[in-house]
């Protein structure tokens, strides 16, 4: 059949949405380690079991303990190879410019893992549901998903800000294993890591104070770290607090110019 050009265009415009409606529903595969019909995607019937988990209700603020006067600063990650060289170049640049260093991305871009678990200004909440723990972060309104339904890590996860996290409960301690964090991100300001960065977190209430949550973090990286880096984050509870919206583009007073200088408007 021969159609006039106008008719062909009309047919194309009509065809696209119709085809989308007729296609089969998306069907992602069952994750490795999860039995079909079970896991986080099939929560029904598993909510009552959540009551056995510890009480992490409310929101949580990072606690910063002021070092004692004259105390040596806490030891940072021990870098090696090109990562150590990058760190030294970063420090030299900072010293040469009153602590100011160039940025290569917007301040509206989140820091990602693991730094986002140790931010001073923005609290967190932990949501339990069958087969997963969700950490909502006020900072940049980021969401972290930790799969606790027995699934394995993705075989080749896309590098992301949050990485691929799987976890399990050891008594009242949530043990989380994270890979797949983008190598563009940092362990701490000016401390780079590779895309092989690996983080284990042991998160539990402080036995001495149930309103304090403790996150014992162990980081390793075969390319960037000479030895595992261990650091403990502590969070204090605000029982009836709630997270506040974070829409950076609505209040962006610190754009980054073409030289990497953070502006102040």
């Amino acid at each position, binding site marked *: 059949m021969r159609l006039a050009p106008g008719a062909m265009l009309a047919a194309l415009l009509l065809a696209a949405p119709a085809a989308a409606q007729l296609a089969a529903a998306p069907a992602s595969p069952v994750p490795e380690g999860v039995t079909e019909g079970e896991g986080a995607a099939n929560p029904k019937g598993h909510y009552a079991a959540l009551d056995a988990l510890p009480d992490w209700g409310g929101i949580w603020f990072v606690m910063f303990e002021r070092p004692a006067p004259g105390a040596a600063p806490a030891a940072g990650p021990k870098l090696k190879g090109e990562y150590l060289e990058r760190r030294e170049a970063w420090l030299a640049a900072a010293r040469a410019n009153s602590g*100011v260093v160039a940025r290569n991305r917007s301040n509206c871009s989140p820091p990602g893992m693991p730094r986002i678990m140790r931010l*001073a*200004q923005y609290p967190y909440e932990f949501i339990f549901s069958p087969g997963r723990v969700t950490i909502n972060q006020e*900072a940049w309104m980021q969401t972290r998903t930790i799969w606790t339904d027995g699934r394995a890590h993705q075989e080749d996860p896309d590098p992301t800000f949050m990485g691929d996290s799987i976890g399990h409960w050891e008594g009242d301690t949530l043990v989380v294993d994270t890979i797949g964090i983008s190598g563009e991100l940092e362990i701490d300001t000016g401390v780079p890591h590779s895309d092989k960065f690996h983080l284990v977190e042991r998160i539990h209430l402080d036995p001495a104070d149930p309103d304090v949550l403790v996150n014992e973090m162990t980081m390793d990286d075969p390319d960037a770290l000479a030895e595992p880096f261990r650091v403990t984050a502590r969070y204090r509870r605000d029982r009836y607090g709630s997270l*506040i919206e974070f829409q950076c583009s609505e209040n962006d*007073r610190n754009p980054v110019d073409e030289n990497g200088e953070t502006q102040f408007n």
Partner: protein
Amino acid sequence: MTRSAIRWLLPALALTGVPAAAHHSYSMFDMKKTVALDATVARFKWQNPHSFIEADVKVPDGTERWAIEMTSPNNLVQEGWKRTSLKPGDKVTIWVHPLRSGAKGGSYVGVRLADGSTLGETD
């Protein structure tokens, strides 16, 4: 800028400043220096990533508009702040760590409100 409008405080006061950087580095501010601004509030923005005060400071030939960055609203709530704590026209004293660049801006330390009550760290 006169000394009556801006009082330079002892650097020791500044050692009890803002916690570690989150949304961006604090290296743009001189955290070892604190100045007090006798100012009239022009605008108060209660929003992440940082609440913000714009205020006019009297100088001999008029006023200077200062931009003052604060911490997050949720942290300010812990300190007793509310969205309605400041409104345009309020006459206040604001303590800040000034920008290193000398531009009219700084990082919030504390405030004395029009009714004499204080929030944050004041002298």
